[in-house]
């Protein structure tokens, strides 16, 4: 990897949940958005922080992302948007989570180019936190650790 992240100092134990498992995170891109640099940077940072990271690739549907997140039993689902379609697609993601009976069991975070005006809209939908450009990578790692720590296994 080329990016030397501030999380590479993380020790092995920090990628673990209190119950002894590894923290599992899924990163996904929904819709036709073709910008994947940012999400790949985040994927490497999380891996280097000792987590198990599953990346779905681009062009996913809300349904396929939610199905995948459930099968992979991740604590956190991270979506990356640089196309402006977050306000249209995020409600559908939450709808699928609810259909699957997984609302509240998987923490959902969003990153990418999100206008400040949209932050509150996303948070109101149920997004746990929004990480825009320039978000310190360390903060993303810490937030996920804290969220994953709330799960029993």
């Amino acid at each position, binding site marked *: 990897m080329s990016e030397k992240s501030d999380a590479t100092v993380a020790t092995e134990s920090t990628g673990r949940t209190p119950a002894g498992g590894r923290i599992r995170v899924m990163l996904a891109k929904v819709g036709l958005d073709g910008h994947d640099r940012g999400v790949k940077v985040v994927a490497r940072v999380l891996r280097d922080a*000792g987590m198990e*990271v599953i990346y779905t690739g681009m062009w996913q549907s809300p349904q396929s992302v939610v199905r*995948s997140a459930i*099968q992979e039993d991740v604590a956190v689902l991270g979506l990356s948007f640089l196309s402006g379609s977050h306000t249209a697609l995020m409600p559908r993601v939450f709808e699928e989570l609810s259909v699957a009976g997984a609302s509240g069991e998987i923490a959902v975070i969003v990153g990418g180019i999100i206008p400040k005006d949209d932050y509150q809209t996303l948070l109101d939908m149920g997004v746990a936190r929004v990480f825009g450009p320039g978000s310190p990578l360390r903060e993303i790692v810490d937030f996920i650790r804290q969220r994953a720590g709330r799960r029993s296994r």
Partner: protein
Amino acid sequence: MAFSNDDLKLVERFKAGDRRALARLITLLDNHPDSRDLLERLAPPAPGGAVIGITGAPGVGKSTLLGGLIAGLRRRNHRVAVLAVDPESPITGGALLGDRLRMARVAAADEDIFIRSLSSRGVAGGLSASVHAISQLLLRFGYDRVLVETIGVGQAEMAVLRVAEVVVLMVMPGTGDEVQWEKAGLIEVAHLIVINKADHPGVERLEQELIDALSAGQESRVPPILRTVASRDEGVDAVIDNLEEIVSRRPGLNWLQMRTEILQEAEMLLGRRLRELADQDESLDDLARAVALGQRDIYGATEETLRRLLPRLDSQDRPAVRSVTRQ
């Protein structure tokens, strides 16, 4: 292992066909290999199911071929599960599990496809125990083809292949890897060899080298060698035809071997129950002190302990969680 009420609720949801419960139980089995006796609580899988291992060097095209196999097996009305094992980073313990990406076109196409990514966690033996238990769980959920993707190097990965009843070795032209497979003994355990990337030059040569290597072996058994271009779905149907053929003529389970395995399992469980009883047994502590002081000898004390505990082995005073019976 003693299961919590939450775990037992998951078991109930699993029996009701809840995929989310299946996913949670996979995590449990993966994180706690000693939770394997969970399988006891589930009805045995329907006959006809099979665990198929797909192995080969990184980049040979395993995940891409799996995408095609999943689609083809679905068309033949199988319910398909995939366990994709990727190595973890030895330094941080983290892992980028990227196999799902290559299977994206089918990864979440319907509910009768279930894909789970696992990291190998560097533990020889531990990984195969996890993969074995998780495969059994998936079979019991009703997935009748469980495909396990793993790179074919390293002890942990080799051990995983023993979990599979059918092993597919994938190779590709132009890498000069054949010698390595031969050394690793992989070539001999494979039931089927797939030359992927047959759109690259050197296919004939590779095939001849494989045949030569196999014929030189002691048993000189040459498994089917097929060619595929996984990225264009070419040759995938023939792979499925061959796999199904191999699965259909696998020998039935050998009862003598099963007898041994039952006894091994019984020995393990008996030991565990004995220890549970011993934990609640104060006279054992007294006996142990007496032996330590030289007042009793260990053989007499053992005999006495057995005589006291054996009649209780089958009684109801075990912890409630253990008395749930297999259905």
